[in-house]
């Protein structure tokens, strides 16, 4: 594969993977079941990355495993109405086409695992998108490192990835413990805990205790998403819940966690974390962004219930981000209509950090309210907006009125 017998794109991909493997002293490659590509858009890939991806497609590169895509920079049918430029639309279409030519599933979502692409336990995969990496490793028990865009692309073409890091049993054990003492009641409460854990664990694998065994899939999705905002965590365990953590001993590989590596998350930490994410009040928001990571069908149903019998105020816009697949499901159930009749917008295929840097400024979105700490980070760093963080119920009366 390295000597070019299978073509130039295979050779280039293998060269990249061998260099990556060498930098981690990987002994060999391992076959993968799927790949998930980040930055399939001209904004996060940049001019350089866009040219890089298109060149591989032009040279005839083909994916040999199912390969899904993270959000694009706009929604293909509403770009004009939402205020994106035609130039950007055309750039996105050209890049999406290049990925489609290579055989990609253009799902343009950060939750491929909820729309038919969940990996199985112990399956080796090459996924990007930090929140999806955490879900795949921790909740599904699959094996992936945090793959940057080019690494996942090369792995998709080669059908393999270097065997290092989280592909190896010995690196998957918990290294520190977070003891939860808070009665976590909703997705956002779990996200607050996740943001706290990311800061403390940095790049280590946390074991979380004190979590009810009734924790839902949505709550785990929201818990993991902010881990890699403040850190670069790839994996976690919840004792009694996630597949590699039937007991604390199994999760830690029978190592005793040292006392200085045990951290409590109590009401004080909960409040401090929430406050650290707010620099404005919700009444100042011009835009509300919900659905980070992209909303599941059950989350859409909850948002619909919170918004029911209400109308979004004319001074504010509400976006609920989700996958196209889930929006279509929501349409068939009447949930999409119920949400859109309030004036809130279901936005699919995209996500603010993938949008142009000056887009929010141009649209007059300087202040944003969101129920996701990950969105706070990306909206404030990539869109220069000021944020309020809290669950929708906290500010529903401010951004909507009763019908």
């Amino acid at each position: 594969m390295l000597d070019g017998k299978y073509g130039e794109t295979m050779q280039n991909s293998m060269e990249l993977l061998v260099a990556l493997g060498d930098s981690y002293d990987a002994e060999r490659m391992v076959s993968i079941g799927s790949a998930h590509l980040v930055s399939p858009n001209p904004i996060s890939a940049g001019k350089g990355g866009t040219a890089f991806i298109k060149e591989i497609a032009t040279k005839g590169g083909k994916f040999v495993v199912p390969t899904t895509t993270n959000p694009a920079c706009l929604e293909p049918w509403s770009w004009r109405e939402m205020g994106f430029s035609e130039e950007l639309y055309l750039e996105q279409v050209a890049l999406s086409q290049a990925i489609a030519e290579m055989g990609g599933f253009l799902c343009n979502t950060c939750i491929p695992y909820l729309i038919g692409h969940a990996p199985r336990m112990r399956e080796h995969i090459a996924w990007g998108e930090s929140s999806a990496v955490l879900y795949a490793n921790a909740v599904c028990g699959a094996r992936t490192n945090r793959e940057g865009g080019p690494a996942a692309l090369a792995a998709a073409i080669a059908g393999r990835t270097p065997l290092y890091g989280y592909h190896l049993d010995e690196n998957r054990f918990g290294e520190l413990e977070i003891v939860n003492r808070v009665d976590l009641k909703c997705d956002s409460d779990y996200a607050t805990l996740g943001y706290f854990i990311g800061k403390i664990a940095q790049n280590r694998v946390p074991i979380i205790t004190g979590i009810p065994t009734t924790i839902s899939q949505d709550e785990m999705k929201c818990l993991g998403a902010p881990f890699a905002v403040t850190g670069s965590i790839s994996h976690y365990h919840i004792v009694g819940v996630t597949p590699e953590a039937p007991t604390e001993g199994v999760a830690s590989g029978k190592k005793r966690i040292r006392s200085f590596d045990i951290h409590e998350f109590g009401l004080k930490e909960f409040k401090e974390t929430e406050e650290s994410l707010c620099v404005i009040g919700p009444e100042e928001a011009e835009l509300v962004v919900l659905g980070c990571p992209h909303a599941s069908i059950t989350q859409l149903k909850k948002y619909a219930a919170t918004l029911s019998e209400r109308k979004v105020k004319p001074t504010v816009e509400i976006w609920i981000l989700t996958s196209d697949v889930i929006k279509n499901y929501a349409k068939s159930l009447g949930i999409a209509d119920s949400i859109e009749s309030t004036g809130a917008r279901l936005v699919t295929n995209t996500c603010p950090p993938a949008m142009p840097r000056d887009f929010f400024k141009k649209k007059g979105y300087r202040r944003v309210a969101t129920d996701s700490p990950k969105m706070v980070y990306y909206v404030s760093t990539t869109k220069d907006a000021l944020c309020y963080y809290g669950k929708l119920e906290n500010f529903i009366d401010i951004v909507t009125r009763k019908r």
Partner: protein
Amino acid sequence: MTEMILKGHKVAKGKAKGEALVSQSPISFMGGVNPEVGIVVEKGHELEGVSICDKILIFPTGKGSTAGSYQLYELAYLKKGPKAIINIRADSIVAIGAIMSNIPMVDRLDQNPLKVIETGDIVEVDADQGIVRIEK
């Protein structure tokens, strides 16, 4: 002038010499750095407002989004990137970004580079040999 040599491990091949810029905290290339100007924009980051362009950039490890690899490539593509990177331990996002951008990069040095190297030192990275030369 004193010279010091650290030995470590190649992440991405190549050689470069330039002025050191040290960050004690991790860096996210997605969102954390504006690739059009090469300036750190993460609020409250110790390098907020500082240019990483043409510097020998020293930080503990990468953090944040997996889109960081292309963003590092974009910095290099727009000629706003660092000349070389030194990490305590490379994370996969920065590693692959450096490899495809031809930015020399080393990690796992025999001394902590965050303690030994100061911003402003002249540093030469020879990634192929896994060597870092520091002039103070």
